[in-house]
């Protein structure tokens, strides 16, 4: 569904991504793991059209998307749940969700999608009139996920969804990611929490200093000695 080929990204003279290639097959959860500064967020920001790579190719459902504007990429069906949730604190839950349905592909079915999101997150339906800024980190993450779903994506990219959340809430978020995948959405998960992301992913890539240094099935990497030593402290 999504293919990245030999992607190079620079910030000034500093190379953030060096020849990164990966495949995200339809209906799978693919994880990108690595330490802080490895280039994980740069990679999904490049896919989303926010960063402009210097070389390489990105295609979505066979269509080249490198160089497209970020709104055009969103409108093709690539959604992103940004790091830090980024909800609008002064807007209500419902207004935050509505903000996700501004894309042309999502406008017509806005009401129907909203009901689907409420069906998936009943706690948001109960608190639809509450200001998002007054909700907990976990609830804000649900709003961020709901807002992304309002754009009717086929592929959802999660950037550090567990960041700043309590362990129990992290489990809830991971359960949501699994459930979205169960509903047919393809997931690209970027996460510093290596153990949990490898557990739920079908396939994973390990990034180090902007390069893919290892890849394989999530469970396989979870039992790899190098991964256990470098990322799990075992």
């Amino acid at each position, binding site marked *: 569904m999504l293919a990245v080929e030999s992607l190079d990204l620079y910030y000034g003279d500093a190379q953030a991504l060096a020849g990164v290639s990966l495949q995200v097959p339809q209906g799978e959860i693919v994880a990108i793991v690595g330490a802080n500064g490895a280039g994980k967020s740069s990679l999904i920001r490049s896919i*989303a059209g*926010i960063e402009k790579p210097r070389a390489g190719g990105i295609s979505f459902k066979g269509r080249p998307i490198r160089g497209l*504007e*970020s*709104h055009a990429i*969103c409108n093709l069906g690539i959604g*992103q749940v*940004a*790091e*830090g949730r*980024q909800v*609008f*604190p*002064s*807007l*209500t839950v419902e*207004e935050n969700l*509505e*903000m996700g349905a*501004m894309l042309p592909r999502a406008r017509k079915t806005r009401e129907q999608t909203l009901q689907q999101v409420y069906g998936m997150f009943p706690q948001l339906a109960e608190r639809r*009139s*509450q*200001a*998002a*800024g*007054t909700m907990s980190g976990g609830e804000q993450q649900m709003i961020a996920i709901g807002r992304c779903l309002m754009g009717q994506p086929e592929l959802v990219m999660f950037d550090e969804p567990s960041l700043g959340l309590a362990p129990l809430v992290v489990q809830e978020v991971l359960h949501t990611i699994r459930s979205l995948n169960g509903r047919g959405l393809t997931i690209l998960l970027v996460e510093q929490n290596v153990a949990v992301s490898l557990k739920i992913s079908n396939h994973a890539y390990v990034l180090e200093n902007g390069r893919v240094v290892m890849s394989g099935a999530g469970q396989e990497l979870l039992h790899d000695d190098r991964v256990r030593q470098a990322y799990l402290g075992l």
Partner: protein
Amino acid sequence: MATKARQQARKSIVIPTPRLVEDALALAGRYKEIEALRRYAAERRPLLQGASAAFLFIGLACGAGVFAFLASVGGWMTLPAMMLAPLVALCSLFVIFYIFYSWVEARALAGALGHRTNRALAVESWLRRKANIDLLARPDVPWIAAGLLVALPLGLLVAAAPLVGVAVLLLAIASPLVYARMDAA
């Protein structure tokens, strides 16, 4: 309920605490990460640059106001004034840009949602009717920080150099109005 909840959320940025810095960082994060907001700002880049230049000037004038006032008190205050002025200018710029960009965000949200996110004041309605200036939304103003770091230095500037001070005050009032008028056009 929504209005009450909004007021609760806003209370957190009325008082200048490290929370204001957190809120400013969160605001910057939303401009960086949220596609709709990023595009809204990109479409208005020249207008935002023009307004930012005006607010940069006003922030620097705040620092100059503190310097001019303290230096006019006596020669012995010149050194402290020289040390304090850049700090005041920096803090003023932080507060001014926070207020301006939170207002731009609120305008973007009001436009996208197709309704105001707060009730229009009489002066706002008058501006809309008489001058075709629709402010659309109000910014989240950290009142104490704005009072100490913007209003007070501007007041000192007016006291030390009345003509320049009044001109800067007029610029501060006119900038958002011109922005709103040109944004509508």
